[in-house]
């Protein structure tokens, strides 16, 4: 890791934390959503697999250090053994997969629309499919809820996350148009 990687990773971790502190934004339908999980998708999409996952690891380290960095002011060691810990650990894999797919899709010149669709797909696969797999497995086996029940309890949150995935893709396209940054 170069010094530039370190500062990008640290700042993106700080962005994920800061997005958790921003009060929930009401969508047009009136459903409030918090922006923290979008921060995880953005870390992968903007920084790439390794640095994106590293940014999430830094956030997890901050949680372990007893800082209230998760949305709603949660933090401390209880989070790691709580029922939703699978979603927290899943963030690492989510950022990695989203970043990896974004890197794969990067190859050729494309229209903004195609790029947005591809990045949305990357964010959905990483930030929803992979993330929910981790969260649901944790609920199913550590909380002993069983796979089917864990699935239905979790799946209620997917509509909000779909919106966030598409927003993350739109944001990534615009940010990368403004500043040159290599994915790694």
């Amino acid at each position, binding site marked *: 890791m170069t010094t530039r990687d370190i500062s990008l990773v*640290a700042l993106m971790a700080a962005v994920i*934390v800061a997005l958790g*502190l*921003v009060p929930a934004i009401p969508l047009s339908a009136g459903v409030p959503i918090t922006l923290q999980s979008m921060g995880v998708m953005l870390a992968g999409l*903007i920084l790439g697999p390794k640095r994106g996952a590293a940014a999430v690891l830094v956030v997890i380290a901050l949680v*372990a250090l007893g800082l209230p*960095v998760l949305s709603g002011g949660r933090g401390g060691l209880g989070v790691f053994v709580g029922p939703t810990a699978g979603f927290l650990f899943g963030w690492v894999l989510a950022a990695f997969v989203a970043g990896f797919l974004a890197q794969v899709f990067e190859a050729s010149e494309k229209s903004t629309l195609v790029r947005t669709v591809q990045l949305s797909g990357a964010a959905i696969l990483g930030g929803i499919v992979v993330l929910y797999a981790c969260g649901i497995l944790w609920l199913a086996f550590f909380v002993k809820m069983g796979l089917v*029940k864990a699935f239905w309890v979790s799946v209620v949150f997917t509509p909000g996350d779909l919106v966030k995935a598409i927003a993350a893709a739109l944001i990534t396209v615009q940010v990368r148009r403004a500043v040159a940054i290599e994915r790694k």
Partner: protein
Amino acid sequence: MIASLARPGASLLHRTPAARKLAGLALAATVLFFVEDARLLAGAVLVGLVAARSTGATFAAIGRDLKGPALVLAVLGLVDWWLIDGTTALVVVLRLGAIALLAHAVTVTTTTAELTEVMERLFLPAERLGLLDASRAALTVTLAIRFVPLITQEAREIRAAQAARGLEGSILALAVPLLVRIVVRAETLADAIDARGFPPDRSSSGRDQETNERPRSP
């Protein structure tokens, strides 16, 4: 800096070394996952309550701190009760409740500085395996802590500017300028770190750690 969840105090848990508390918590959580007896788990909850209370926090304060986890637990308990049976629900709620209380007792009595020290020690074996560079990893974590308030401040400024232009509620209008500023700032930050000659070479950083143990000569 972000305000830590730790509270000052002089209780037994405050005085116990951080590494020992963390090891104890990990052990307790592991053991509790294998306990299925509701009476034993109720005992564990009692131990958790005593531990949390021994930090000097009143039960009202503990309740306030654990409101979020309690809500999640209540939902989980209800789901289990509804879909499986009352006994399973009770076991799950007692187990996770006990762990939450114990973890809270450790979190409240351990400062960020103590935990950072433990974390650096945990980084060392990974460094020997060539997985990461302990000093760089520690710097990254410290930088993130340092930059959260600045980013929150910038986010607030951007939102205020949007509100003035009637753009309230647009996630795109907040995140795009925020992230562009962040990436540009990362470049400046990297230059500043490089200019100060970080990281120090391995041999000298090792000596620095040793001298911290002894009083410095004038």
